[in-house]
């Protein structure tokens, strides 16, 4: 295993202060970046093969290269909304090493020529936001933010923005609307944020983990970074493992190790006597995989080939003591609650899926409802402004496809329970 990058010394006391961060080599990459022409910086990011860690896995360097040149006001926005169920890696990065993120944002802003940038953090992360506020004040005071940073001639105003509790504000254009002081409704794309984003200006949006990786790429060079991991999935990745495992937590892995190694060797596997029933490889939006898929290499392409996705890198393990119907209900409940309501297939589809799973649980469904549920998912996918609807349709659809027997058994069992209750136990 390669050395830790993002988690290097993460538990060192005081790493969240600028002095300790600098003692461990912090802000050296920034100096190195200032000595490079913008084009070379973006080339480094592209050559590193770094793919976005927020969900979509798009090449960071390529996205930065879409930002037009010219004198217009440009922005970098760090997405610290982290609301995808199962994901909690950005939280640990911000809380324990906020300057690593700040340094990454400064380098990215310099690379694309943004002089005003933002970190949009979910409002629930109150303690982490306070830590970031202190770190930002330190960076301003020590001349890493503000006018003419380290004599480079580059100036940056970096502001923290606290959200107020809405999953959809993690979607990049919903986030921009929220940051502009509106309801967080996603926008029609194109235009993409790189061309017309925050306040109408070109905007580069990246996840906390993506931006925290930037100083390491500059420090070690694109080629050395690209040597970590596997083809098209370079580098290390933080995986958040939770659910039915003995040691839930964030682990920094080299992309391309086996999923079994993460779930069993690192997170300890399910409790004794229990087995993996299904697992979400990349947050609750990713189609579920089963125990048969545990040996899949944990990287972007292998998981996509297996019909799922790496997403945010959040593994949720469900053991065999749980009902998949309950899991489907939680999923549908979450997405129908978080749908912003702008598109009919998403707003109505998530609500009806929730209602139908509810019918299974209370014994009023028939097996035909499973086909209707599957068709509802088909009608959501690809028919909306953003992919929140798809993010419910894909995992729910995969649960029905892979565990149809269990859904049918539960429909029957719940129906009998209901009849028994209605007839006062006469049937029993």
């Amino acid at each position: 295993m390669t050395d830790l990058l993002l988690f290097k010394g993460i538990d060192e006391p005081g790493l969240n202060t600028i002095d300790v961060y600098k003692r461990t080599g912090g802000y050296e990459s920034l100096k190195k970046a200032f000595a490079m022409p913008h084009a070379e910086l973006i080339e480094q990011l592209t050559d590193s093969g770094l793919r976005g860690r927020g969900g979509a896995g798009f090449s960071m360097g390529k996205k930065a290269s879409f930002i037009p040149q010219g004198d217009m006001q440009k922005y970098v926005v760090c997405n610290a909304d982290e609301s995808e169920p199962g994901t909690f890696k950005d939280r640990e990065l911000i809380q324990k090493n906020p300057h690593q993120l700040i340094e990454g944002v400064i380098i990215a802003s310099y690379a694309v020529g943004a002089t005003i940038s933002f970190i949009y953090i979910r409002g629930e992360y109150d303690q982490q936001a306070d830590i970031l506020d202190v770190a930002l004040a330190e960076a301003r005071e020590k001349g890493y933010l503000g006018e003419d940073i380290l004599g480079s001639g580059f100036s940056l105003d970096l502001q923290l923005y606290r959200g107020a509790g809405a999953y959809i504000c993690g979607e990049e254009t919903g986030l921009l609307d929220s940051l502009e002081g509106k309801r967080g409704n996603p926008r029609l794309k194109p235009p993409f944020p790189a061309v017309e984003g925050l306040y109408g200006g070109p905007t580069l949006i990246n996840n906390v983990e993506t931006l925290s990786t930037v100083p390491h790429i500059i420090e070690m060079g694109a080629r050395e970074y690209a040597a970590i991991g596997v083809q098209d999935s370079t580098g290390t990745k933080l995986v958040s493992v939770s659910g039915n495992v003995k040691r839930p937590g964030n682990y920094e892995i080299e992309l391309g190790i086996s999923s079994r190694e993460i779930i069993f060797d690192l997170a300890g596997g399910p409790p004794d006597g229990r087995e993996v029933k299904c697992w979400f490889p990349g947050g609750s939006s990713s189609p579920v995989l089963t125990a048969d898929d545990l040996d899949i290499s944990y990287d972007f392409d292998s998981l996509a080939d297996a019909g799922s996705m790496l997403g945010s890198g959040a593994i949720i393990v469900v053991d065999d003591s749980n009902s998949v119907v309950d899991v489907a209900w939680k999923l549908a409940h979450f997405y129908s609650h978080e749908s912003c309501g702008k598109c009919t297939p998403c707003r109505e589809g998530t609500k009806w899926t929730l209602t139908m799973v509810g019918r299974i649980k209370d014994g009023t469904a028939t097996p035909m409802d499973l086909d209707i549920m599957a068709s509802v998912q088909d009608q959501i996918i690809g028919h909306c402004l953003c992919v929140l609807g798809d993010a419910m349709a894909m995992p729910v659809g995969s649960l029905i496809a892979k565990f149809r027997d269990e859904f049918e058994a539960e429909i029957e069992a719940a129906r009998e329970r209901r009849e028994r209750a209605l007839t006062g136990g006469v049937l029993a």
Partner: protein
Amino acid sequence: MSDPDLDLLPEFHTSVQRFDKGSRIPGWDRAADLDKDPAEVPDPADTEVPAELRAVIEAEMARFPDIHSAAIPALFAVQRRDGWCTPEGIRQAACVMGVTPAYLTSVATFYDMLNTEPCGPRQVYVCTNISCSLCGADELLGLLQEELQGNEEVNLRGFECLGACDIAPMVSVDGVYVGPVPFDEVPELARQIVAGEDPLPGRQLVKRPSADPKVSGSQATNPEGSDA
């Protein structure tokens, strides 16, 4: 159901409640109320805004290229003062920002952390999303509800994933994350919430070492782990 057209509709149509002209939407054809005042930016002359609130909101407005970005921070400022986003507070914030109260209300109603109905000022969230519910979150919420029943100071609610699934099942007490919360510590937690004490100090997330065995000083420097 006075419309004669309706009589021509087949029977099954009338089983859905219909309003004028067969519409399912009540009042769809009612003219706009022209006597009602148009939405207006509150007049500073007759809107009294306490100096502290004004100072906080103005400082927020100055942080952004566009003052509208101060909407959420302004609403949080109102909620901190009043416990929830009161109409009076929204009016004052709108006056400072030079926007209509309706605009701020539309923003407030979108977000889960902003309360537009009266509620207790203490915000306690129990995550009931997938990972936490796999670890007993629904029972935890039920137990805490029993303990805090009738307490008007506390706004206790089930919440979506709070980004702390590693300490499932977990609770956020005014932003302080604690977990995993064993059921037998619920009465103690409830007592601390009511008394305004530091919640379960030994179980706070910010004090937790990394789970990754490669991190020195982590919880599991030995990959087999002591709890395995």
